């Protein structure tokens, strides 16, 4: 599924963020709306009064629409629906920022990062992130308050400092019913005051997903390529706990992290028993991983022993465990109950051999973004008899 496209811009002299309207909208909502004009299903009475802009797959504009800003000739966005939010730029670039009917919406609020993880799927780059904050705030205003969950990601969102808090605050006031999930390395919460201020916002449905790659500082620092990062994150976790901010520990499993996974599990239970859940994640074969694949790639089948030991221990100790990004056929069946369909809908796919699989509907599939690098052990299940109990207990 494409989230970006390019067309030809007309009369667009600044970046526009608006909510998609597909039918004639009442005048009072038009000031936030981008009119999506699909030739076949739109009335053509020429009433474009008050819309922010017009977006169309057609190569040229009809005469009645030649007075408002527009992007024409945009292809591949057939899945756009009313209530989705798009960004249009003067260069004719279109990005879908929010999809109303998706469970996987996230705001990429920062490009920059203070770590440089070996396997980063979203390689950081210096950027005027603070200059874009107003766009994120505007997007939050346009999101449907009925949205179940919204993510904040980066880069490193907390590098926005005060603006990060402002974004969380805005989510709380505009989207009180929406769970907010923030992906952060937690390093900035080394500063107690920052954690205290986040806690003081009092967002009641907030969770920070914070990666921890080892029980030992030097190992973690190596993975994130930043000396001192482990100490900052560890202190940050304690500060966040002190102010009641819910935390999820995230571990990406690859050749540099899988061996000490059981030790990491013990470390979490003894030092951070307050975390809400621990998420053990398969590697997305993209981003920086591509620059040194042999350092990172390991067939998940090879680390099932460590995964099973760590999961059983965490679960026994009363921590909630989730396994992300693993196909059911690659997981030990005792782990099925922990497996989640975690890959976002727009980048999830199934291999051709999965077509006949009996548990395909319960499986999270593979990353479409992983360039074909998947476990060698992916295979369809034929019957349901052997796998019934494991699925039922899920």
């Amino acid at each position, binding site marked *: 599924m494409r989230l970006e496209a390019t067309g030809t811009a007309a009369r667009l002299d600044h970046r526009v963020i608006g909510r998609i309207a597909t039918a004639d909208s009442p005048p009072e909502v038009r000031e936030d709306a981008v009119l999506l004009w699909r030739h076949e299903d739109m009335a053509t009475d020429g009433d474009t009064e008050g819309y922010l802009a017009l977006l169309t797959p057609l190569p040229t504009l009809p005469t009645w629409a030649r007075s408002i800003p527009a992007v024409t000739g945009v292809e591949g966005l057939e899945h756009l629906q009313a209530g989705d939010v798009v960004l249009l730029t003067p260069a004719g670039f279109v990005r879908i920022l929010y999809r109303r009917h998706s469970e996987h919406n996230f705001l990429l609020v920062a490009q920059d990062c203070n770590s*440089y993880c070996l396997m980063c799927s979203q390689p950081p780059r210096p950027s005027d992130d603070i200059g874009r904050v107003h766009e994120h705030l505007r997007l939050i205003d346009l999101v449907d308050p009925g949205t179940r969950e919204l993510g904040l990601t980066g880069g490193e969102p907390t590098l926005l400092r005060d603006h990060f808090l402002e974004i969380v605050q805005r989510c709380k006031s505009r989207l009180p019913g929406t769970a907010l999930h923030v992906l952060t390395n937690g390093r900035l919460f080394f500063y107690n005051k920052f954690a205290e201020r986040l806690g003081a916002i009092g967002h009641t449905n907030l969770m920070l997903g914070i990666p921890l790659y080892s029980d030992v*500082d030097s190992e973690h620092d190596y993975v994130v390529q930043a000396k001192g990062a482990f*100490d900052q994150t560890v*202190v940050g976790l304690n500060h966040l706990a002190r102010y009641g901010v819910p935390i999820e520990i995230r571990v990406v499993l690859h050749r540099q992290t899988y061996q000490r996974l059981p*030790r990491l599990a*013990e470390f979490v239970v003894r030092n951070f028993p307050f975390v809400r859940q621990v998420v053990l994640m398969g590697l997305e074969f993209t981003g920086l991983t591509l*620059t*040194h694949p042999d*350092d990172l790639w390991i067939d998940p089948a090879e680390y099932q022993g460590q995964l099973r030991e760590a999961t059983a221990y965490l679960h026994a100790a009363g921590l909630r465990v989730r396994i992300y990004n693993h196909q059911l056929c690659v997981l030990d069946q005792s782990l099925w109950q922990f497996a989640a369909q975690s890959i976002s809908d727009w980048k999830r796919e199934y291999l051709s051999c999965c077509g006949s699989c009996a548990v395909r509907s319960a499986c999270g599939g593979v990353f479409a973004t992983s360039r074909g690098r998947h476990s060698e052990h992916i295979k369809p299940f034929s019957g349901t008899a052997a796998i019934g109990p494991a699925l039922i207990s899920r």
Partner: protein
Amino acid sequence: MTGPLILRQGQRIGRQRFSGREAFRSVSAYYLLPFRFERFCGNEVLVVNDVGEHLFLTASDFARFTGHELRSDEDVYLTLKGKHFLADSDSLVPVDLLAIKARTKRAHLEGFTKLHIFVVTLRCEHTCRYCQVSRVTQDRKRFDMSEAIAHRAVEFTFRAPAERIKIEFQGGEPLLHFERIVQVVREARAKAAATGRHVDFVVASNLALLSDEMLEFFQQERVSLSMSLDGPAFIHNMNRPRPGGDSHEVAIASLTRARAALGADAVSALMTTTRLSLDHPRQIVDEYVLQGFHSIFLRSLTPLGFARRTAPRIGYDIDRFLRFYEEGLDRVLEVNRGGYQLVEVYAQLLLTRMLTPYSTGYVDLQSPSGAGIGVAVYNYDGDVYASDEGRMLAEMGDKRFRLGSLQADSYDEVFGGTRVRELVESSCNESLPGCSDCAFQPWCGADPVFNYATQGDIVGHRPDSDFHRKNAFIIRHLLELYRSDEGVRRIFWRWIRGNTIGDPNAESTT
């Protein structure tokens, strides 16, 4: 998979961009963080740090570790570092983490005295062979707690800063003085409401005298019951004589009524091991299952009071008890493997200390001892004792653990006086001879009252101590069981977590 030429280019870029592991390792030598150790058979050394985290090392790794010879890229080095046995930089973060864990392990000290025992009467209609204190008498005036004393005891109870307070009624047989229970519950409820505290009530009783009127009151006030159950009828009735010799039958009948009125979880049972019990651990465990209990406490006889006097008849040496414990625990595990959840309470307590960062508030096994600072006993006559065993000793004529009097002394005199201070100072096993360098120290505790009763001295002499023998044996046994197989580990963790109804990792997934 990828074309070789492109791949090589990528790798070259990668190598330029990423620093290797060595760049993140400390260049300074490591230093040791506080730990204790114990040699195990099979050429192993158990190391336990100050906050109770443990690790088994080979003897040679242990020698290299303590000899500062480990290399920073060895697995064992990283594991020792991750568990805070060694540190290798000037970062204070490992010390901060240890501080949080040390504070957590001592969280039971927060709030001061939480368990308040009210001896509302010394009268009883049973004549149990091991009982330290009860009297069979009609003399209410002499052995019942007066209204004024009870009132004063409630005042003392709520002087403790604890947010959650537990009041336990004991005797004698407390149901013989039901009106005093009613008074204390009502006054305590009012006090708790006025001071924003939470209070729980439990009555320790043989349940023989449990009337419908009492049940109705207990139900209204959410009072739970702790009954005596020593095993099947032939053991229970032998241990606990009463007119008619039907203690077991009467207790079980009352148990059924109590569960119906108060709910299944509102009644727990306590067993005492006598010489007769020693040959029947399986039957005793099975009796608990038969009666629908989900926890059992395989408890040795308190070597105090009447029990000490009658020791030649019902007593036994500690090694015999430990054989009994081991067999009983085996049976408990078997029962769990069969799908019935049954917790052995002492193991649960020790395992929680060994395997979690949390503290446990069991007053007879903590450091400093819970005597006075975790538990207080208000005796029927207005005297305040540092522990239940302390007042039992007093009934035998030795008031060594009497902290003061409700009528004559102030709260500060009783709980801030020299007796309490002396007890605390003499029961920190971090500094007790024979404890301070024991590997099990962070998991264990001290019992000055026991020491005094058995050895005549509150500090005690560890090599001859039954308390030491018992705990060292059970801890070692639990460690071995935990290492032995995954099934046992799962059962132990379920005990630690407590109530696990609906646990998806139940036994069937073995």
